[in-house]
């Protein structure tokens, strides 16, 4: 009898059944997508860590005897002991059967073989991927925990969607079950009926949803590979395990059965009369807000709509939260990307547009050989180039050496603050040295108007320091750093903890202009530019190796980049080098941004779909109660147009609420972020992502309106008489 009753009900109430099936399908699909996606990210992380740092779990540095190794191997939990020879010396890698006890077993092992604790290293990064953390680490890596947290929140939200769909469907059937109970059906029979219905309705959508989620994940990974195909890095590989299917399936089926059971349990707590009345107690409103603003603006229809939504706020909670969060996240993300784009444009692409086009880093080559190589190649279409190396040294400055301008600002400490270290009455200052190939150095000197008679007698001091009191990092103003004393030698140290002067090099001239190089130099450093001849002649006692030589190339025009690049590659054939292309970087940056927008937009879309699914289940699931509600209005003179107005108001409130919440929060975020990063708000307004935000808002409004249109059509067919006293089975 129950089987027939269920089949008959499901057939007669197709929309309700379909809304439950859709909720189960969407939830299972996204549950499967999220678990599969996070699993793939996790596997990718592990593979990357293993590739970069090795697959060892713990290691002991230094040589161990055969006997010591045997002792380690003898420990029950040790799976393998592997000897490894690296540049740093011998290492003994220890692998465990059960990694979780690594932080207990390893101290025992070193105690056993008598090795000091300092020789032991744990692969914390790899271990953390398995949630194994050093108990003494106060700040363990928590990225994975964050991923799991996000996954759990999304998973629970999706489970709530299924539960909500069931509750709404059950609510609409309360009076029917009440009638069945009144003629002798036991609560147990009704519970079994509901569980059977739940399984019958949801099994197929769950299987389909899981398959859809896996396919979507595969698509996302392929898309990510597609975006990064032309650039660097390895392709992500899709992987799937049966355990993932089992997790998604069990989570979905558990939610379905639990939701049906919860709904069934509600019956046992209600009186028969309440059930027969179709859960009218839901409208037993004891306390209500007044909503004067809505009443004032939209009249009694607005008030009725707002209050009706307020009464149903629990049922609409998923929709409210999901839609608001999705729109807020999307809005903040787009604004963040816009601000970040503006920032990158000015601090990188715009700033370096006329500084470099191609940057070559050649390893283990002499600087003068590079010059000869480029000369020999005689590459056309190069506007200019600098060949240089970099060395970081230090010097000490006393108060009397500082410029009057710097003193006027309050001294070095006032400007540099904690970025400067001080000892007794002197400051330690970093001195980055740019060693230019002689001809590049000559070009630089000519450009800054300095006449250097001989290339091997000293260096040019870029005598400037950022006046951060009167300017921000986006529009830096500079003042002289030290007093200019031509031909006075500057003492240089090799490392920052040495006191001994390694060498002293005369300063031939002072300037406030850096060479046009793609270099980010420290804010409060005293930069020195010297020729390769000076370096080779005067710094021979410095134990500094310059393994890398940089060639900063500016082409005649952007269109020449590829041909110049091809020629440079040809010339450097056989050497160890890396090449960066500014235009390609810019393009890559744009593609990455698109990828991020796609992924974050997708996640926001997912959240929005969860919310919209809830709106659909609400509009289609509460038909019975809403028919009674509207019949009441109609009986006292509300017109069909009035009902449409109420429904329209509800669309406006449900769709508009996320926007109303989002606008002020986004404004606060933008103002805060723009002022913190010194970005002009007018510049932001010019680039504001208004179109995608409007499109997103329209999609939300459109979908909510569609849900109300479908539900509203059934509501508008309400028969007042039937709705006000409908106790029949339908």
């Amino acid at each position, binding site marked *: 009898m129950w089987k027939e009753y269920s089949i008959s009900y499901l057939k007669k109430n197709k929309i309700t059944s379909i809304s439950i099936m859709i909720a189960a399908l969407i939830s299972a699909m996204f549950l499967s997508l999220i678990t599969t996606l996070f699993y793939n990210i996790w596997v990718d992380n592990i593979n990357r860590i293993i590739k970069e740092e090795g697959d060892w779990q713990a290691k002991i540095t230094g040589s161990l005897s055969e006997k010591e190794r045997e002792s380690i191997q003898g420990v029950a939990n040790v799976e393998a002991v592997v000897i490894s020879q690296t540049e740093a010396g011998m290492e003994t890698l220890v692998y465990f059967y059960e990694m979780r006890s690594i932080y207990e077993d390893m101290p025992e092992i070193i105690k056993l073989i008598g090795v000091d604790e300092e020789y032991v290293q744990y692969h914390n990064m790899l271990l953390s991927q398995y949630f194994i953390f050093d108990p003494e680490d106060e700040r363990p890596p928590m990225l994975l925990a964050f991923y799991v947290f996000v996954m759990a929140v999304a998973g629970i939200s999706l489970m709530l969607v299924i539960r909500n769909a069931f509750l709404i469907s059950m609510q609409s059937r309360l009076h029917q079950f009440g009638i069945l109970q009144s003629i002798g059906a036991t609560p147990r029979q009704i519970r079994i009926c509901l569980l059977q219905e739940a399984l019958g309705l949801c099994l197929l959508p769950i299987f389909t949803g899981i398959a859809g989620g896996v396919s979507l994940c595969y698509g996302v990974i392929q898309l990510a590979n597609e975006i990064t195909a032309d650039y660097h890095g390895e392709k992500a590989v899709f992987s799937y395990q049966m355990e993932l299917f089992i997790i998604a399936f069990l989570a979905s089926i558990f939610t379905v059965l639990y939701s049906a059971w919860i709904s069934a349990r509600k019956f046992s707590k209600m009186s028969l009369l309440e059930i027969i009345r179709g859960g009218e107690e839901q*409208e*037993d*409103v*004891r*306390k*209500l807000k007044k909503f004067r603003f809505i009443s004032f603006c939209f*009249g*009694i229809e607005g*008030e*009725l709509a707002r*209050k*009706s939504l*307020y*009464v149903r706020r629990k049922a609409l909670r998923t929709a409210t939260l999901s839609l608001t969060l999705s729109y807020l996240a999307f809005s903040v993300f787009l604004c963040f990307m816009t601000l970040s784009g503006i920032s990158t444009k000015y601090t990188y692409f715009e700033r370096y547009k006329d500084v470099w086009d191609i940057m070559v880093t050649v390893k283990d080559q002499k600087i003068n050989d590079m010059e000869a190589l480029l000369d020999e190649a005689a590459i056309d279409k190069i506007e200019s180039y600098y060949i240089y190396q970099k060395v970081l040294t230090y010097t000490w400055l006393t108060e009397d050496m500082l410029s009057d301008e710097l003193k006027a600002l309050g001294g070095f400490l006032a400007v540099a603050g904690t970025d400067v270290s001080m000892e007794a009455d002197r400051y330690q200052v970093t001195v980055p040295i740019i060693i230019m190939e002689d001809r590049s150095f000559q070009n630089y000197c000519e450009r800054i108007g300095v006449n250097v008679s001989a290339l091997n007698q000293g260096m040019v001091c870029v005598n400037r320091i950022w006046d951060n009191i009167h300017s921000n990092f986006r529009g830096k103003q500079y003042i002289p750093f030290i007093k200019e004393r031509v031909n006075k030698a500057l003492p240089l140290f090799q490392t920052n903890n040495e006191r001994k002067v390694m060498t002293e090099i005369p300063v031939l001239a002072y300037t406030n202009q850096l060479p046009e190089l793609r270099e980010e130099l420290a804010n409060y450093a005293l930069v020195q530019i010297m020729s390769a001849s000076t370096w080779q002649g005067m710094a021979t006692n410095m134990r500094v190796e310059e393994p890398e030589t940089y060639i900063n190339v500016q082409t005649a025009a952007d269109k020449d980049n590829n041909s110049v690049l091809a020629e440079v590659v040809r010339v450097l054939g056989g050497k160890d080098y890396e090449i960066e292309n500014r235009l390609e970087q810019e393009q890559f940056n744009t593609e990455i941004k698109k990828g991020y927008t796609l992924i974050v937009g997708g996640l926001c879309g997912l959240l929005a779909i969860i919310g919209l699914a809830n709106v659909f289940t609400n509009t289609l699931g509460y038909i019975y109660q809403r028919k009674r509600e509207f019949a*009441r*209005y*109609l*009986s*006292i*003179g*509300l*017109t*069909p*147009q*009035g009902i449409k107005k109420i429904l329209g108001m509800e669309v406006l409130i449900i769709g508009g609420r996320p926007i109303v919440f989002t606008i002020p929060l986004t404004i606060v975020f933008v103002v805060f972020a723009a002022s913190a990063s010194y970005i002009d708000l007018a510049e932001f307004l010019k680039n504001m992502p208004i179109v995608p935000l409007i499109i997103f808002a329209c999609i939300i409004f459109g979908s909510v309106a569609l849900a109300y249109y479908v539900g509203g059509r059934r509501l508008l067919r309400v028969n*007042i*008489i039937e709705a*006000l*006293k409908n106790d029949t089975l339908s």
Partner: protein
Amino acid sequence: MEILRCEGLTKVYGNADNQVKALDHVNLTIEKGEFVAVAGASGSGKSTLLHLLGGVDYPTEGKVFVENTDLSTLTPTSAAIFRRRKVGLIYQFYNLIPTLTVERNIMMPMLLDKKKPDMEFFDQVVATLGIRDKLNSLPSQLSGGQQQRTAIARSLLYRPALLLADEPTGNLDHSNSREIIEMLKLSNKNLGQTIIIITHDEKMALEANRIITLEDGRIASDESRRR
């Protein structure tokens, strides 16, 4: 003066294979200020008659005139406006709007018309019905009797031509039933309100000055009484 007239009023439910004739060519005239009780067994068609008179439902055949307006020709919108302005409907289960206060519930027909109620009359009605101190309460905070009085106040506020009550005491105890009847009589007497009341209760029917008895959708008897 005639306020209501039915001519050959017929209502048939169901499809061609399974037809139920709820009303069968009913002819009826009611004068302004009358207090009429429509009695009859279950299924005799009395609720159907009330719904047709209130413009809630449309007749299959025949006409209903209220103050010379033919209800059978009204569009759904015009019928709604008619219900709002010309009739006051009182139901057994009150049909108050649970999300509105008593005051807003009573004013609802006027608010739908974007009109301000005559506050003097409003005060008079709520004072007479004894719900002045409940104006800020929600329906769920009232007893059954208070809810029905609120429904009566709502039906009276627009000073409608007709007040139609479908088993108004069906959900109330004896004492509350008595009070509601007294109030309906009071509004009939003091305000000259025309009242048509549907009831099973013989004692209640005897309170009216005219009793119409329906049987199988036809008027079986129509007798005037002196109170």
